[in-house]
Structures are given as structure tokens and as C-alpha cells.
């Protein structure tokens, strides 16, 4: 399952797509809206995407991961639009025969997502808003 969604992410449904009897390890990463950033109170997040390209990039990340860790099953779902406090903006579920690959593949996927999938995040505060860039990657401030 690779998807962008306007709805609250059903984590169990995402994880179920990677389950199987043969799995030794299931690892689920959720990125959750934080309530503060630099001391300003975040009210909500707003995500937008270059939809078709974002889905294609997510699929490419999943394919890269499967090539690198044979036997991997992976699902990635990213929220779009308004995301409230405490709600997941992204869920990445993987299953692998052994836990080493689960940790490596999950980490690979979230790191790759942040640097190559065309998705943008606006943090909305009580006193304004800002488009918030991920740290690292070629978009690092100053690079």
C-alpha cells in the first residue's frame, strides 16, 4: 500500500498490508504532529503534494527498499491537507524475516521520503504560519 490520503491514517489497516505468517519482525514508524517548535505553539499542520509525482517517488522508494532487502514488505501512507495535533502525518510499516532489515529499511524509507518526495508542510501557529523545510538533504539552508 502506497498512498496519499486526506483522511486520518488507519494505522492498523496499513500494518495489516505487510503482515504475513512468515514475518519475523514488523516495524511501524509514525510521524506525529508536535505541539511545539522553537517555542511557538503549533495549532495544526497543512500538507500539500505534487500528487502524481509524490506517489511515483514513494513507489520508487519502496522498490529501492525491496531491491536492497529481499523479502521486505513495505507500506507508506502520507496525510494531505489539515492534520491535527497528535495525528500521524506519515505511517511506514515494514515486515522482514529478521529485525536488522526491518530497522534498516524503515529508516531508509523515512529518510528518503524526506529528501525526495514532493510534499510540503505548513506549520500554523496562533500568530502566523511558515512553510517548514526538512533538515538535511540538498535543501538544507545554505546549501
Amino acid at each position, binding site marked *: 500500500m502506497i498512498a496519499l490520503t486526506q483522511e486520518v491514517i488507519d494505522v492498523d489497516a496499513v500494518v495489516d498490508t505487510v503482515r504475513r505468517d512468515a514475518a519475523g519482525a514488523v516495524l511501524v514508524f509514525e510521524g506525529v504532529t508536535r505541539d511545539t517548535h522553537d517555542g511557538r505553539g503549533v495549532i495544526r499542520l497543512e500538507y500539500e503534494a505534487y500528487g502524481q509525482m509524490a506517489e511515483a517517488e514513494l513507489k520508487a522508494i519502496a522498490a529501492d527498499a525491496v531491491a536492497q532487502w529481499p523479502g521486505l514488505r513495505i507500506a507508506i501512507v502520507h496525510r494531505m491537507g489539515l492534520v491535527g495535533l497528535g495525528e500521524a502525518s506519515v505511517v511506514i510499516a515494514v515486515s522482514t524475516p529478521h529485525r536488522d532489515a526491518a530497522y534498516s529499511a524503515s529508516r531508509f524509507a523515512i529518510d528518503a521520503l*524526506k529528501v525526495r518526495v*514532493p510534499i510540503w508542510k505548513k506549520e500554523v501557529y496562533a500568530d502566523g504560519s511558515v512553510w517548514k523545510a526538512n533538515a538535511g538533504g540538498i535543501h538544507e539552508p545554505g546549501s
Partner: protein
Amino acid sequence: MQVSVFYFAMLREQRGRADESLHVEAGLTVGGLYEQIFAAGSIGAMSIMYAVNQSYVSADHMLAENDEVAFIPPLGGG
């Protein structure tokens, strides 16, 4: 020739629209198109990636008829 151009995030807000169809001279690069559109704005100093037909390309990628161009400001997914 005609190209379609997509804007996102702060670029969409600055441009005041999400997409448009533009007539450009043959031989123009994707980086050159960005400079034409945003050169006057303070946003010009921002680190930008370029996509043509939904694949990342470098700034010196030459545009072709009916290309779908997107300017990719700093990403915030995750």
C-alpha cells in the same frame, strides 16, 4: 512552444496560482524559466529542485514542447 508549469507551497502563494500554461522560447532551460518567473522575488535565493514530466532534472535541462514543469521548493514531508 507551450509548457505547463506547477507551483507549490510558498511558490504557489507568491505566484498566486497552482499552475498555468506558458509560451516559452525554444532552447530555454528549466532553471532559466525559473529565473524568468521568480527573479524579481526574494524567493529567488531559495534552494530549488526541478522536475520535468515528474522526474527530477538539473537546472540546465532543456525544455521541450508540452513539457510538464514543476518547481520544487524545500520539502517538508514526513
